[in-house]
């Protein structure tokens, strides 16, 4: 919201420096984002009167002017048409023009020139500010312009504009008037309403000429209208045009400019109709009919539907309510009778219509923020008052006000103690009462009870907490000291097991040399094809966003594979030689699609990927160690997954459940992500890990007796899996004495001289907690094991 301080002065005698005012506004909840000098860069330009004009002694196309500003100067110019008596802008030595251009005195073909004359462009003024300013030549100022003063002052361009951010609750502050109310309270000065907020003459005359039928009070809770006759349409005076232009609005004619002026000053969007376009003398506020069409002021045709509110005459829509008027129902050069509309349309209705039509205006933006019930009347008074003040027309007696359900007068009743209970500090009763009154919230005290009557323009004030905020923002947030008397029960901070172990898993992965990535939860729907998932893969069932930032961010991921492969590719493509990466994040798996009332399952997945000096076993080691660390027993079994290497992939099982997979990513999938590295990838259900992990499982005594180690060199079919050999070993031994069994070497090759076989070296460790084991009992166990291996897997000793 741009607030020119001169405009503010129409309401309050502000005598603070702009910076000081800005500081005060900030401390009261109005963030001043910028303080703008309206004149821009312009400096050192003065109004000057030409005293004499002579030909340049050495050049036909130049003249030498003697001028009077604060004293006499000489200026050489090629504007040979200038004549004595003209008043012009004179940029003296050292002047700065719009855009930062600097002017210096100098010699022009042997004659000294003390500066130069300038045109409108160099002074950032346009035709609508000063006639002639739009032309590409020296600007001749009106005859009554005072001579020898700063141009910026002479043209009243010496203004400072505050750019203020308005919070969503303070809809009333989206106008100069609303800010003025705050400034009055802040500075302790009275708010003076300008005289053109007139009382519209009362009477019934208007009813004879115009009827309002409000068929949609749910979308239009209030519709006011006033009328003027004998209207003269002409160009607006400079002060109106300048103020509109400063806000980025284009001056059109006096009546249309008034509606925009009121929008800026009161914050109430208005519309002006030519009475003769209101067929049947009736304004009907109704939902548009299906496929009803309107050509708006932007020249485009819009097709409406019953979701859109339309302002109609007896026959057809004249305006899209709160958004834009129709091209044929506006103000024309011959308009003689004007109807001003000042209405409250529901903010979400205007917002939806504006969005669905793809049509936004200053009015729709303003309505979308919300309008209070005070502004319709204030806007109408100001608009009619401006017409009357300038003699552009005569008001018709009476105002039409369709306001079926008037908002009740709200009162908030409380004590100073209630305020203290919210703030934690005690504010004197007198301060509370005085400051609320200064904010134009009429407040009285009776004994300990304070009652505030909430004015119509403060719809944000509902209860005592809102009053407390008004009090503290004026009392000052720096009045708190840092002590706390927070009472109540003693609570020990709690971290759930899932949170604790998620942190453990992350720390473990860091210990494994991995960096934690951060990837978006939404991915491209193309991911499933990139991962070559079959058409019926349940992971293709992804939640779709209705309004994504783009297709690449349009579905919620159901697995972490795509996100992680992208992160890997980022690194590989940038020629980072190696990387171990991990992330724990949620995937979203809906029961069915589209989502109706049930939220999808949100599951935490641990994803890990590595490339560089890696192979399947460096990958697997990370997870075997992780599971050991978490005390989770897991098993790895060969598996096929669409995007993984068919013979280098395992699914991971624990507690009879599949909890993830790991392996090498299929090379053509890796290529689809833009790299040709061998990439190793794992995904594990992190919820399972954190639920089943255990930190301490009870103390186990350690054996004092020495272990007995035996190595067995076995010959087996190449197809027998390591895990089956070890399972058979444990099953056969069926003894607590076998404390460890592991395969330490596997050998396949021609030296073995038996096709289809492999040599597997198994190391068995036996140990007792009670005694030193003797060879005989170990041998007995070994025999049992060998027998079982031969029987079940056809395995022999080498």
């Amino acid at each position, binding site marked *: 919201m741009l607030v020119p301080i001169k405009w503010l002065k129409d309401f309050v005698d502000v005598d603070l420096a702009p910076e000081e005012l800005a500081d005060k506004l900030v401390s009261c909840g109005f963030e001043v984002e910028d303080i703008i000098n309206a004149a821009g860069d312009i400096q050192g330009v003065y109004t000057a009167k030409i005293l004499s004009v002579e030909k340049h002694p050495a050049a036909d196309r130049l003249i030498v002017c003697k001028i009077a500003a604060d004293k006499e100067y000489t200026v050489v110019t090629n504007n040979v048409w200038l004549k004595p008596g003209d008043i012009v802008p004179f940029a003296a030595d050292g002047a700065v023009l719009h855009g930062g251009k600097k002017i210096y005195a100098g010699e022009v073909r042997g004659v000294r020139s003390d500066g130069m004359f300038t045109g409108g462009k160099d002074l950032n003024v346009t035709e609508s500010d000063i006639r002639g300013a739009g032309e590409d030549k020296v600007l001749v100022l009106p005859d009554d312009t005072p001579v020898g003063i700063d141009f910026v002052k002479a043209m009243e361009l010496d203004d400072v504009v505050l750019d203020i951010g308005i919070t969503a609750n303070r809809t009333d502050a989206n106008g100069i008037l609303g800010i003025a109310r705050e400034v009055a309270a802040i500075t302790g000065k009275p708010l003076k309403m300008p005289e053109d907020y007139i009382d519209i003459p009362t009477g019934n005359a208007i009813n004879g000429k115009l009827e309002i039928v409000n068929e949609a009070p749910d979308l239009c809770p209030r519709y006011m209208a006033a009328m003027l006759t004998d209207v003269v349409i002409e160009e607006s005076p400079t002060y109106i045009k300048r103020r509109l232009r400063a806000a980025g609005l284009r001056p059109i004619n006096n009546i249309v400019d008034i509606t925009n002026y009121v929008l800026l000053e009161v914050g109430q969007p208005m519309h002006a109709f030519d009475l003769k376009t209101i067929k049947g003398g009736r304004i009907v506020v109704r939902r548009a009919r299906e496929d009803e069409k309107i050509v708006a002021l932007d020249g485009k045709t819009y097709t409406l539907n019953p979701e859109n509110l339309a302002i109609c005459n007896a026959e057809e829509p004249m305006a899209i309510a709160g958004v834009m008027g129709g091209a044929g129902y506006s103000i024309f050069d011959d308009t003689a009778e004007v109807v001003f509309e000042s209405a409250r349309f529901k903010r979400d209705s205007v917002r939806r219509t504006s969005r669905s039509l793809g049509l936004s205006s200053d009015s729709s933006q303003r309505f979308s923020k919300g309008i209070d019930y005070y502004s319709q009347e204030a806007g109408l008074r100001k608009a009619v008052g401006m017409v009357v003040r300038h003699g552009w027309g005569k008001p018709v007696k009476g105002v039409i006000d369709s306001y079926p359900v008037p908002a009740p007068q709200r009162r908030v009743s409380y004590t100073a103690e209630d305020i203290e209970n*919210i703030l934690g500090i005690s504010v004197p009763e007198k301060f509370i009462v005085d400051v609320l009154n200064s904010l134009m919230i009429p407040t009285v005290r009776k004994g300990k009870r304070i009652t505030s009557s909430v004015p119509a323009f403060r719809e944000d004030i509902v209860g005592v907490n809102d009053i407390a905020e008004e009090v503290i923002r004026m009392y000052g947030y720096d009045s708190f000291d840092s002590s706390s008397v927070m009472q109540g029960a003693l*609570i020990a901070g709690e971290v759930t097991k899932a949170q604790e172990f998620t942190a453990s898993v992350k720390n473990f992965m860091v210990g494994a040399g991995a*960096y934690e990535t951060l990837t978006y939860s939404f991915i491209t729907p193309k991911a499933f094809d990139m991962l070559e998932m079959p058409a019926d893969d349940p992971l293709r069932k992804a939640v779709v966003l209705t309004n994504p930032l783009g297709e690449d961010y349009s579905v919620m991921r159901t697995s972490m594979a795509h996100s992680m492969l992208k992160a890997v590719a980022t*690194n590989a493509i940038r020629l980072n030689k190696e990387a171990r990466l991990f992330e724990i994040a949620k995937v979203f798996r809906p029961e069915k699609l589209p989502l109706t009332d049930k939220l999808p399952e949100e599951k935490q997945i641990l994803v890990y990927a590595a490339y560089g000096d890696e192979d399947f076993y460096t990958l697997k080691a990370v997870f075997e160690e992780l599971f050991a660390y978490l005390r989770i027993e897991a098993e790895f079994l060969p598996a096929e997954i669409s995007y993984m290497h068919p013979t280098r992939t395992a699914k991971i099982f624990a507690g009879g459940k599949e909890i993830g997979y790991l392996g090498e990513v299929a090379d053509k999938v890796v290529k689809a992500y833009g790299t040709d590295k061998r990439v190793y990838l794992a995904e594990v259900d992190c919820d399972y890990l954190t639920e089943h992990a255990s930190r301490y499982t009870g103390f186990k005594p350690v054996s004092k007796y020495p272990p007995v180690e035996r190595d067995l060199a076995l010959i087996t079919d190449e197809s027998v899996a390591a895990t089956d050999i070890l399972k058979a070993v444990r099953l056969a031994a069926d003894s607590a004495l076998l404390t460890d069994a592991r395969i330490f070497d596997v050998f396949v090759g021609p030296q073995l001289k038996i096709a289809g076989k492999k040599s597997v070296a198994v190391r068995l460790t036996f140990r007792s907690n009670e005694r030193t084991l003797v060879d005989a009992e170990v041998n007995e166990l070994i025999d049992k094991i060998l027998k079982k291996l031969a029987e079940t897997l056809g395995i022999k000793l080498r």
Partner: protein
Amino acid sequence: MSTDNLKNFFEERIRAVENSDLSQDVKNLLITRTVDVVKQMSELGNAERRDLEDFRVRHFGKSGDITAFTRLIGTAPPELKRTLGALINDIRSAFENAFTLMENDVASREYAKRIQAEKVDVTLSKNVRREGTGGLNPITIVKNDIVSIFAGMGFSVVDGPEIEYTKYNFELLNIPADHPARDPGDSFYINPEIMLRTQTSCVQARTMETTAPPIRVVCPGKVYRPDEDATHSPMFHQIEGLVVDEHVTLKDLKAVLEQFAKRFFSADTSVRFRPSFFPFTEPSVEVDLSCAMCHGAGCRLCKGTGWLELLGAGVVNPAVLDMCGIDSAKYSGFAFGIGLERAAMVKYGIPDMRLLFDNDVRILSQFR
């Protein structure tokens, strides 16, 4: 014992033998053999372990000549047996001492040789992962720091869903259906009732719905809004804090946030409230912290103001308490929300939020 000492010692023994009453034959035998072995011994010089072993076998083995001295004792006349025995023992133990010394000498020469052979260039690096040692994401680091500060003040950590009902994201937070914040330009929707949460404040509502006061929780998590530029990401992280109890006030909020700020940045950090607006708190405040870099003097990080905007907070709107089933006449509360990306950017001096989502290990490896 040095070779000279050895020689002196044996000269002494030889003189003792010469002066003894032993027969000349025995004397000659003892003297020549001893002199011979001493000579051989002195020639061993820089012997290797194998030479020493040979020497031992030759002279001290079963058929060694020094061992043979013992047999002389049996041949000697009884009255000389003691003398001869003493002399031979002397000679023998002198040899053994000398031999042990030589063995030690060999061992230490062998050790020195091995140590030389095992020399490594300690300035050389091998087997180091080129991209470093792994690390947490800065967002996780900042989250952990913040959570542990609040855990120390008695806050528990709670989680909530990221795909959320509009009820929790809006209605229960006092953001009615016609509120501008519900515009599709400001939130990602899945259908009119389900959306990606735009704020962790949803977890406030969920917590209050299921938990009776006293409540003291923080809720970290991902949130989503349709913005993307140097200071906005469509997915980002917040930590929401909520306290509900009897007699909780705005002043308590300031004290708690001051504690947080001092621990998260430094002990001289101060906190400033500026009035603001959030639908679910009333009064609402923007919380500024004195700049972590310039400590209030004004610098590039704080754009010369001396203050950093880091979080929003306020007293829980009584309407929110009531909607969530908590008696606002009895209980009050405060809530605050911290943007983790912003906190990380401030803490680490990261210029563009998008870098936090870049995932290049050259960036990730900068944080611990």
